[in-house]
C-alpha cells in the first residue's frame, strides 16, 4: 500500500522519518522507562511480568481505540466505562441463564453499539454537547446496572470457552485470544482510518465540521458512526473484562472513561478533534499499564498511583508536543 511519492521522498532519511513520527516522543519515553526498569528491577523483564502487562492493557486498549475514533471526529465519549459495565453484565447474565455464548455476545455487542448510536443521535440531532450527552449516558448506564443487579455482582457464568476468551487460558504459549482480537481490531481500524473515505471524512469532520459540510460530507452521519464504533468497542471490552474477572461487580467500569481518554490523548489524539492514530491509542494504553506495573513492582503505596499516573499523562502530552513540533513541517498523516 506504499504510496508512489518516492520522488519527493527519497531525500528523507530513515532517521528523519523516525524522529518526525508523531509518536516518537512517547516511544522514547517508554523506551527510557523500560530500559531503566530492566536494569534496576530484576523482576521487570521476566516473561511472566511482560505477559502480565500485555494482558492488563487489553481492556484499556479496546476503549482507547474507540475513544480515538470519537476524538478524531471532534467528539468525546465519557460513557465508555459505563457501557463496558452494562455489556459485561449483559454477557455474564445472559450466559448464566444458559443462553448460547454467541447469542449472548451478540446481544452485548448490539447493546454497546446501540448506546453509541443513542449518544451520536443525542449529540447530532438534539444538539446537546458531546460532554454533556455522554456524561448523561454514563450516569444512566451506571444507574441501570445498579438497579438491575441491586448492587450484587453477577457471577456463575464462566465456562471453559470463556476462560479462553477472557484470556485466563492461553491458546499457545503466552498468546491469548484477547491479544489476537486487539491486533485484528487495531489493524482493521488503522486501515479504515488511513485508507477509506470514512476514515478521511472522520478526520475532516473533527478538524473543521463547517468546512467538511461545505465539501459535501455528511457530518452527522460521520459523528454518529464514530460513537457507534466507540460503543461497539466498549462492548468488546465488556465481553473481555467479564471473562477476565470472572465476576461482574456493578461498578466494574468506573474510571475507565478517564483511562481511555488518557490513553488516546497520550497517543496523540486531540480533544480539539482531527488528530489521532490507532498505534497511538495502543501506546497510550501501554503507557498507563506500564506505569501501574512499575508502581506495583517497586512497591510504591497504591495511593500514589493516581498521582503518578496524572503526572505521566502531563509528561506524555508534553513529550508528544515536543516531537510533533519537531516534525510539524513534514508531518503527513495520510501516508505510511
Amino acid at each position, binding site marked *: 500500500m506504499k504510496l508512489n511519492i518516492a520522488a*519527493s521522498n527519497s531525500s528523507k532519511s530513515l532517521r528523519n522519518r523516525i524522529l518526525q513520527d508523531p509518536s516518537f516522543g512517547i516511544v522514547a519515553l517508554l523506551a527510557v522507562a523500560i530500559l531503566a526498569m530492566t536494569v534496576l528491577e530484576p523482576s521487570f523483564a521476566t516473561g511472566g511480568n511482560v505477559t502480565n502487562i500485555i494482558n492488563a492493557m487489553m481492556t484499556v486498549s479496546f476503549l482507547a481505540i474507540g475513544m480515538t475514533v470519537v476524538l478524531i471526529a471532534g467528539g468525546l465519549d465519557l460513557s465508555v466505562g459505563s457501557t463496558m459495565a452494562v455489556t459485561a453484565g449483559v454477557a455474564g447474565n445472559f450466559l448464566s441463564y444458559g443462553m448460547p455464548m454467541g447469542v449472548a455476545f451478540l446481544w452485548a455487542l448490539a447493546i454497546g453499539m446501540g448506546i453509541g448510536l443513542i449518544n451520536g443521535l443525542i449529540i447530532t440531532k438534539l444538539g446537546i454537547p458531546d460532554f454533556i450527552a455522554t456524561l448523561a449516558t454514563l450516569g444512566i448506564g451506571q444507574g441501570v446496572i445498579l438497579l438491575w443487579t441491586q448492587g450484587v455482582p453477577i457471577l456463575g457464568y464462566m465456562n471453559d470457552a470463556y476462560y479462553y476468551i477472557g484470556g485466563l487460558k492461553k491458546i499457545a504459549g503466552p498468546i491469548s485470544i484477547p491479544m489476537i482480537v486487539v491486533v485484528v481490531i487495531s489493524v482493521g481500524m488503522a486501515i479504515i482510518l488511513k485508507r477509506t473515505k470514512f476514515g478521511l471524512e472522520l478526520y475532516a469532520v473533527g478538524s473543521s465540521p463547517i468546512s467538511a459540510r461545505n*465539501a459535501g460530507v455528511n457530518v452527522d452521519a460521520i459523528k454518529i458512526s464514530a460513537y457507534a464504533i466507540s460503543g461497539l468497542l466498549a462492548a468488546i471490552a465488556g465481553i473481555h473484562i467479564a471473562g477476565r474477572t470472572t465476576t461482574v461487580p456493578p461498578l466494574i467500569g468506573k474510571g475507565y472513561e478517564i483511562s481511555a481518554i488518557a490513553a488516546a490523548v497520550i497517543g496523540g489524539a486531540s480533544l480539539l478533534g482531527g488528530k489521532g492514530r490507532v498505534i497511538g491509542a495502543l501506546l497510550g494504553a501501554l503507557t498507563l499499564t506500564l506505569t501501574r506495573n512499575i508502581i506495583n513492582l517497586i512497591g510504591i503505596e497504591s495511593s500514589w498511583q493516581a498521582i503518578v499516573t496524572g503526572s505521566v499523562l502531563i509528561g506524555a502530552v508534553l513529550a508528544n508536543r515536543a516531537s510533533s513540533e519537531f516534525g510539524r513541517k513534514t508531518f503527513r498523516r495520510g501516508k505510511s
Partner: protein
Amino acid sequence: MQDNAFAEVSSLKAGSQILKMSHISKRYQGVQALDKVELDVRSGEIHALLGGNGAGKSTLLKILSGLTNPDEGTIFFHGQRVAIESPRSAQELGISMIHQELSIIPDLSVLENIFLGQERLITQRKSWSPWVNRREMAEKVRSVATEFGITEEELWRPAGEFGALKKRSIEIVKALVVRPKILILDEPTSGLEEHEKELLFGHMRSLQRLGVALIWVTHHLDEVFGLADTATIMRDGKSVAQTSIEGINLNDLISLMFGSQAAALIEQPKIDRTAGKAGSKERFKTLEVVGFKREGVLKDISFDLWDGEILGIAGLAGAGRTELMRALMGIDKLDSGSINVFGKIGKIGHPEKAYELGIAMVPEDRKVLGILSEFSIEKSISISKLVNVLKKGFLSAKKEKDLASEFISKFSIKTPNSREKIRNLSGGNQQKVIISRCLNTNPRILIFDEPTQGIDIASKVEVHKLIRELAAAGKSVIVIASELNELIRLSDRIIILREGSIVGELESVPERIQINGYEVVEQDILYKSSRVKV
C-alpha cells in the same frame, strides 16, 4: 489527464438557460432574508451577483449550493425542476462553489482537501467502494493544481501549513477539478495578489468559453466591468434587477444596489464641523505616531492625528491597516516605534494602557472580537470601565441601568430594554452598543475598524452620522474601511498604506470631492494603494 479537462461541458449549447431560480423565499428567525428572488443564468456567461451587505446574496448561494433549503420557490436546472437538498446533491448536478471564508481543513493534506467529498466526481466513476486511492486522486488533480502553483510536493502536506493565499488556490483547484457546470465564486479574489487575481480571471474566461456558467459575487464593482456579461442586483432580500453589463455604468449599478437610500449614503455631512476645522480654532495635535516597525508587517510608519479630525486609513487587504491599529492599541508588540499622546511619550504594551491614554477601538469583526454575546446591553457598555458604575466598591445595578439608558436614548439603540442580551440585537444596534462601550471610557481618540461591516444601509448611515458627530465634538477619529466609498465619504484626511508603508496622503478630502469630483479622489487612492493602474 492532460487533455481537455472540460470537454464534457463544452458540448453544451452555449447561451442556453442552465439555471433558473424562481420565487425563492427564505426566512431566518422572523427576518425575511429572501423575498421571491429570481435568478436566471445561462451557460457560458459570467453572471455577477451584486448587492450590499445583507442583501441576501449569501443566502441565495447557500440555497444553490445545498447548504440550506428555501421556504418557497423552485429551482430549474437545464429546464428540469430539481431539489438541492444537500451540498452533495448540488455537487452531483455540477454546481461547485468557492466559498468566501476559507473552507480548508487544516489537518488534512492539500490533496485530501481537494478531493474530500467529491471522489466519485473526480474519478468519473460510479463506485461505492469505501477505499480512497490517494495516488489516483493525485493523478487526476495534478494538472489543475500545477496551474495554480501547487507543486507535487505540496499536495501531500497538511493544508494547515499554508498561508491564506495558497489556501485560496487549494479551494479554486477543488472547485475546478470536478469540471463544474455552474461555478459559484463568492468574493474569490479576497486576499489574492494582483497577478493571482489575473490568473483567476483568466481561468474564469476559459471556463466561460467552455460553456460553464459562473456566478460571481464581488464587492469590487470595478472588477465587474470587462469580465461579467450579466448582473443580477439584490437589495433587501429582493432581486431588483437583471441587467447586461454592457451599456451600464458604475453609478447605475450603485443606485440599483442601494436604491433610494444611496442618496443618504452619498450625501455630504451636514453636521457643523467648524469646531474641528483648521482656521476656526487652534488645531491641537492629539496623537503622534513615530516610526512604528514590525517585522514583515509594518515598515516605519509615522503620522499625526488632530482633534476633531476623521483620519481614514486606506489600503488593500494585507496592506497593514488592521495591524497598524492593533499596534496602536497595544495588542501586537512592535519591534520599534513610539507614540506621543497629549505630550505623554511612550510605548503601548497592553490595551489597558491604550485605554488609560484615552484611545479606544471598535474592533473589526464584531462577532468574533467585539461582543460578549451572552452579556446584557448594560454589562456590555459598562465592562470597559466598571469604575463608572461602582457604588461603595460594588457594582451598582442602578448606575449600570442609567448608563445604558443614557446611551440607548442618545444613539437610539433599538431594544426592548437595557437588559436584553447583546446577541439578540441587530448588527447595527450591536455596533452602537460597542461604540457606547468605547465612549464610556471617555476616550479622546477613537479607532473604528470596519465600523459598518455586516450592517444594513440604514444603520450604516446612522453609524456614519454618529462618527461625524463625535469628530464634531472634538474627538479624534481613525477609520478603517475596506469599502473605499465609505472611507472617502467619511474622512477629512486619508493616508494610504501599501505593504506596511505609507505611500500617500490626501488632505481635505471633502473639499477635493467638491472640486475634482468623487471619481478622481477614488482613482487617486486606488492608484496609490495598488501597484497597477485601475
